């Protein structure tokens, strides 16, 4: 069972990792704890559902499922479109609310506004798509038995692989592209970056786009391996924050490692504590990190 819990932990940690990247950047560069970030996962998942509806019209053209996976090209296309749509949503929120508040009030007012927006976004999902769970496909995918008596679903392995690919591409983006380098600059020293002629407004928009895209993809993959429901993101708030804080705000790799640690500890915890206490595990992790390493495992000590 230990191996199974580890496998489950790594796989569910991958979703948390993807979602936490955006949150981590937001905490460092936008300088506020964005409680509405997790709702972007929900919206990403539901956007993909809409686009999937369009693409299924062409399903003959795309052929069936890819290999052992439970989905075909339409879902992947829907996922990319959903990332775009979620980015637009995030930019709209930024322009309508956070930009204004950030200029006037303190950053804690932004935290609070993010609370309100989270509630708003969650219930708009209920209004549009209804409160009941929805599945991308009603087919059930059965797990494959691996050596060591570990069962994993092919979709989840795909999820892990895609996470790795995304993190590597993000790394290249951050180190090679102008926008990425500017982002790192602002993240490390905003004042210095500003006087060196970096367009901070642009960087902020990039942060929203990257964060929202990663969140959308995480949402789609999460929805794919389980289901879509309006509380999809809400239930992930604490794991996401735990991952971002664990990794150290602003550190991409930190967020990824943080996500995996959160996933593993949640899944392994059920071996020692009753499953009903599992949702508290990320919180305990947060307390431990804040107590011993307030700047995260990979954050620089102030």
């Amino acid at each position, binding site marked *: 069972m230990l191996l199974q819990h580890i496998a489950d932990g790594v796989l569910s940690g991958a979703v948390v990792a993807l979602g936490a990247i955006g949150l981590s950047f937001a*905490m460092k560069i936008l300088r*506020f*704890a964005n*409680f509405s970030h997790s709702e972007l996962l929900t919206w990403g998942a539901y956007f993909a559902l809409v686009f999937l509806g369009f693409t299924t019209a062409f399903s003959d053209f795309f052929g069936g499922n890819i290999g052992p996976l439970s989905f075909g090209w339409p879902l992947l296309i829907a996922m990319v479109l959903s990332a775009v749509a979620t980015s637009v949503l995030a930019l709209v929120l930024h322009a309508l*609310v956070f930009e*204004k*508040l950030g200029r*006037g*009030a*303190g*950053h*804690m*007012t932004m*935290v*609070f*506004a993010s*609370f*309100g*927006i989270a*509630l*708003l976004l*969650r*219930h*708009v999902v*209920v*209004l549009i798509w*209804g*409160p009941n769970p929805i599945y991308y496909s009603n087919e059930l995918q059965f797990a494959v038995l691996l050596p060591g008596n570990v069962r994993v679903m092919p979709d989840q392995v795909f999820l892990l692989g895609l996470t790795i690919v995304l993190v590597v591409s993000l790394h290249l983006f951050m180190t090679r592209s102008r926008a990425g380098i500017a982002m790192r600059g602002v993240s490390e020293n905003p004042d210095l970056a500003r006087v060196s002629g970096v367009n901070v407004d642009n960087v902020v928009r990039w942060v929203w786009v990257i964060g929202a895209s990663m969140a959308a993809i995480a949402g789609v993959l999460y929805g794919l391996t389980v289901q879509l429901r309006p509380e999809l993101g809400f239930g992930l*708030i*604490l794991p996401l*924050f735990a991952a971002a*804080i664990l990794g150290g705000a602003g550190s991409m790799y930190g967020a990824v490692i943080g996500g995996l640690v959160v996933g593993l500890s949640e899944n392994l915890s059920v071996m020692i504590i*009753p499953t*009903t*206490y599992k*949702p*508290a595990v*990320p*919180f*305990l992790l*947060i*307390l431990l990190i*804040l*107590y011993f390493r*307030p700047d995260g495992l990979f954050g620089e000590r102030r």
Partner: protein
Amino acid sequence: MIGVISYLVFFLILALIFSIAVLGLNLQWGYTGLFNAGVAGFIAVGAYTMAIMTGPSREAVMGGFELPFVVGLLGAMCTAGFAALVVGLITLRLKDEYLAVATFGIAVTIQLVCLNWEYVTGGTLGLISIPNPAKPLTDGPLAQNSVFLLIVVGVGGIAFWSLERIVQSPWGRMLKAIREDADAAASLGKSPTRIRLESFVLGCMLMGLSGALYVAFIGYVSPSDFLPIVTFQIWTMLIVGGSANNRGAVLGAIIVWGVWTSSGYVISKLVPTEIQAQGGAMQAVLIGLILVLMLLCRPRGLIGERMNVSRHARI
């Protein structure tokens, strides 16, 4: 007409019980700028303390001390304050957002503990038969509720009066200085960590008090009383009423609770039964919208902060 009065008394009891928690939050957010996202958790701590201290003895559950009402109130404040002290000591020296995340987490955890630690909290069954202090004094629901309203007004009045005294004092001045600029306050010899801790603990004690009054009134406590939405309601009350103003906090509690309950009434009248599930979501969207718009357009709420110097030194 008796019905209307009876309902108003009932409504006011709940609204004023909430307003005590809002006052606590006002101390934390309005005066000190502390973001407590776990209000429901601290209310729960107070509520269960009250239930355990004043409730009858039960099988397989701790407690049954049957202590007097007032002792229960004080005990509830102490345990909520203690919980706040622990969280505060860990997070208050850190960046502001961490308090928001940690308090959000503690509310989730406290709810889980309420749900699962059967020996103390009765688990999912909750704790029943918590004595109502108004019951031995009078007969009839209206008379009893009126007496209870007096008790709430009395307790809330003491809390209100004490808060007014201490926020319009050098201590309150420090809170606001910390809220405005913690670094600048530190450069003037104030210890942000200590002051934040004091404000946080005091605020949470009021939340505990509010929880204690709630269970004494309802007579029953269960984990489902402390869903995250409660935190959200308390926050909306403060923002609508006006932060950094205790009158605003009380007014906000009455208005928001009024809107919340009457919008349920309106929805039940106007929206057909078939789509009332959507009606509930509409209500949440509406409240979320009011909140965000309030922050954008009228961040000070209905009654904003009053400029003052000190009770002793008006110009």
